[in-house]
């Protein structure tokens, strides 16, 4: 159950990532082309191909069989007796044995990987796509298989397999299958919840076709990647077993050669070196190829995410003199940029200027991508670590915030500036009780004993309208409703009586009835604490309800700022007018009747007009 939970969570973040990527107008590059331009992929693939060919064509390169022994050739030097790499301690041709071992490895990899894939993919599709009952059974069987230590089982079953490496690899393939099963099952479960699968079903596509067209295409990439790793571990296990001495001595294999070389290490270290090198090359190429495939099919590994105040590129704050002392918060000519894949910076906020006085509410309005949330995050100093502030200044109560370190900002946040987020649930740490999270914040802002902090938090919870504060205090986030969670977050934000509250779409994720209550609560708290509020929203109804002044943002710029009444009655900028016109009219319900049978006439009338 737990793994499943994490898998879906993982999937969700991935989905989010693709969504974000989609926002950038991307150049399309097929995975294949990406692979061909990746030197790591090309080199490892060529190496593998060369090794496999070497094995297949071994009769062309050697005139000795791998098991032909000649007493003259015991520990013979390289090049003597017609042995390219010399002879081993039994007088066999090391080169011939090396090539034969390649074939053993390739067969092991083929058996192990194909058994694991056949079982894992089939049952993964079945377990993922069909109902819970079927999945219950497959789940149980595969976790059973997964529980047993693979190598131990292979050894325990020696009497059964008689040490034949092919039979052993067959069993090993079965032991590998749970990994593939889980991979495929998770992918399928993820796709199954995608709306496009629902849409395909509504479009009348049969299950077979949906599986083939929509599900298999998602499963394909990760399975190809996994195959490289399956082949690698099959080869590693086969050589491990051969090293232990499992299997017939007439089957040449790297493991057996290494074991013999190991025993002979002091006299003839090269005998040990050759098979190790070859084994190393094969497994390393497989892993490197697998990693390249992963990069090409799924995108590279995620970048580290540092917690730090945003980088600032401008050396001097724009101009100290021009800033009027008035205003609690003054933002001057703020510009924020993100690096593009080509290395240049792309501005998302270009020269935003705004000011806010104590006790005032400023609405920052705009459509998605207008830069309103970025502006709010810049004031809080919590922009993503890739973001760069290219110019401008942000002052709170006369103190410049840009350029402060994360540690210095910690002192400002919580005490002077506070934040209420959009999505209440995802903004609480699911692993801590509501009370524990709030207490930590309260104590970080103003040092006090744990007991005092608890009293303070309970009082706050009561203040924000939570009916049973003690119970909510001890609850985990998933045990409370979205509306309650938003009240909890507001309590956390106002805990230390901040001067400025930044609310980023604080009601967008809530039901309309809850939204009204939360807006009432914010209004009351603002009066009580004489806070300034910077309210980011796209909803003009919310603006009309709570804001004193409004700033309208479009594509990273503020196009119009003004008093709320003025803005609604006499908007000056064309963009503001367009937005206001898009609001669905309160008082004009749809007037035309159903078009049931009048279809043809309707079309006719339309023509006539």
């Amino acid at each position, binding site marked *: 159950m737990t793994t499943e939970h994490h898998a879906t969570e993982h999937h969700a973040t991935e989905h989010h990532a693709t969504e974000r990527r989609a926002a950038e107008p991307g150049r399309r590059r097929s995975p294949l082309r990406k692979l061909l331009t990746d030197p790591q992929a090309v080199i490892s693939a060529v190496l593998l191909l060369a090794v496999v060919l070497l094995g297949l064509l071994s009769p062309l390169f050697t005139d000795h069989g791998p098991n032909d022994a000649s007493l003259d050739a015991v520990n013979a030097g390289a090049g003597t007796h017609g042995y390219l790499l010399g002879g081993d301690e039994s007088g066999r041709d090391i080169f011939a044995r090396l090539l034969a071992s390649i074939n053993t490895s390739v067969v092991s990899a083929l058996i192990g990987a194909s058994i694991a894939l056949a079982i894992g993919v089939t049952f993964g599709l079945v377990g993922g796509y069909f109902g819970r009952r079927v999945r219950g059974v497959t789940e149980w069987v595969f976790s059973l298989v997964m529980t047993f230590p693979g190598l131990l089982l292979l050894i325990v079953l020696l009497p059964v397999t008689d040490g034949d490496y092919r039979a052993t690899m067959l069993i090993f393939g079965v032991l590998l299958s749970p990994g593939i099963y889980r991979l495929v099952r998770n992918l399928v479960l993820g796709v199954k919840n995608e709306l496009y699968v629902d849409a395909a079903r509504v479009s009348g596509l049969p299950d077979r076709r949906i599986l083939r067209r*929509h599900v298999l295409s998602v499963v394909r990439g990760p399975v190809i990647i996994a195959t490289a790793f399956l082949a690698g571990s099959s080869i590693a296990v086969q050589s491990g077993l051969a090293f232990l001495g499992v299997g017939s001595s007439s089957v040449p294999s790297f493991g057996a050669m290494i074991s013999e070389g190991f025993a002979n290490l002091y006299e003839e270290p090269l005998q040990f070196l050759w098979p190790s090198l070859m084994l190393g090359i094969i497994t390393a190429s497989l892993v490197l190829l697998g990693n390249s495939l992963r990069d090409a099919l799924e995108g590279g590994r995620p970048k580290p995410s540092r917690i730090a105040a945003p980088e600032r590129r401008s050396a001097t704050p724009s101009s100290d003199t021009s800033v009027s002392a008035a205003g609690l918060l003054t933002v001057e000519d703020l510009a924020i940029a993100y690096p593009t894949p080509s290395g240049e910076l792309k501005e998302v906020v270009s020269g935003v200027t705004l000011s806010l006085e104590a006790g005032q509410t400023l609405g920052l309005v705009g459509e998605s991508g207008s830069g309103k949330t970025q502006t709010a995050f810049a004031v809080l100093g919590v922009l993503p670590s890739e973001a760069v502030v290219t110019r401008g200044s942000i002052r709170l109560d006369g103190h410049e915030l840009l350029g402060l370190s994360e540690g210095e900002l910690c002192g400002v946040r919580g005490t002077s500036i506070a934040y209420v987020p959009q999505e209440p649930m995802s903004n609480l740490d699911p692993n801590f009780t509501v009370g524990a999270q709030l207490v930590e914040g309260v104590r970080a802002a103003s040092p006090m004993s744990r007991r005092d902090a608890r009293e303070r938090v309970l009082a706050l919870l009561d203040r924000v309208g939570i009916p049973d504060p003690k119970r909510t205090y001890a609850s985990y986030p998933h045990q409370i409703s979205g509306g309650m969670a938003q009240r909890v977050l507001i309590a956390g934000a106002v805990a230390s009586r901040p001067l400025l509250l930044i609310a980023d779409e604080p009601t967008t994720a809530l039901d309309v009835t809850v939204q009204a209550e939360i807006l009432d609560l914010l209004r009351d708290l603002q009066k009580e604490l004489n806070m300034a509020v910077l309210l980011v929203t796209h909803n003009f109804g919310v603006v009309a309800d709570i804001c004193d002044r409004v700033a309208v943002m479009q594509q990273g710029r503020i196009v119009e700022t003004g008093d709320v009444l003025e803005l609604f009655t006499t908007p000056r900028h064309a963009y503001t007018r367009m937005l206001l016109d898009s609001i669905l009219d309160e008082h004009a319900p749809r007037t035309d009747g159903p078009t049931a049978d009048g279809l043809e006439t309707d079309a006719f009338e339309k023509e006539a007009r």
Partner: protein
Amino acid sequence: MTTALLDVSDLRVAYPGRGFRARPHEVLHGVSLAVDQGETLGIVGESGSGKTTIGRAVLGLVKPSGGRIGFLGQDITHCTPKERRALARYIQVVFQDPYSSLNPSLTIGDILSEPLVVQGATARGARARVHELLDQVGLPADTFARLPREFSGGQRQRVAIARALAPGPKLIVCDEPVSALDLSTQARVLDLFVDIQRRTGVAYLFISHDLAVIRHVSHRVSVVHRGDIVETGPAGRVTSEPEHPYTQHLLLAAPVADPVEQRNRRVERQRLAAAPPTAETHRNSPLKQGS
């Protein structure tokens, strides 16, 4: 009125409870509604009210635990998969999320022609029909060969509408189709919905949490609250002079984009919240003056 296009009576849906031996959890407690040809029935409700489940039951994506769903006089409550596939010609869907409702690895052309091909169209015929559909939803012809990620939310939603229109359906279930869109895009997409209905005579079961959206597209409106329909009536009346206290509550809670009017509405809402709602308060509602 003869037989309705869609006729749902006493629909019940229960989801299995989580865990072993858990009791099923009923989300719809006997919902009845009807949609006529060419009509839009708006379904409005808050999250968890069961409004989305109504749509999914009509689409056959969840199994009803009771009641009956009739389409053109035929009982479609418990269809076989084959019957359900045949219904695809008549009942279609537009989902909320324009990002996950299109398969990211297929071109727009593939997405749109797939259902046509399944229904027996030739590749050539499907292609011609797809171009016609793209034109109908206001997308350029070169959309055909492009991938969903190259389009904005509004454009993707147009693609989803085109997909729904492809087989020439009688009914489209629209599940919050404009909720994820920006304000200006939202208005344009809603106009497209209305425009298409006028031209093709398709009926909509239009599900949304937003009274303003519902008011804009619906002929009639049903209000869902905790798995029950509390009020049904003409859009004009239900969305401006509601009878049921819950609908009144809903209406007063939605902020209106006018600072003066919103202040009045807020005062009224707070007064209503203080005193339990009666018929009296409704009659004195300041909203009446506006309508």
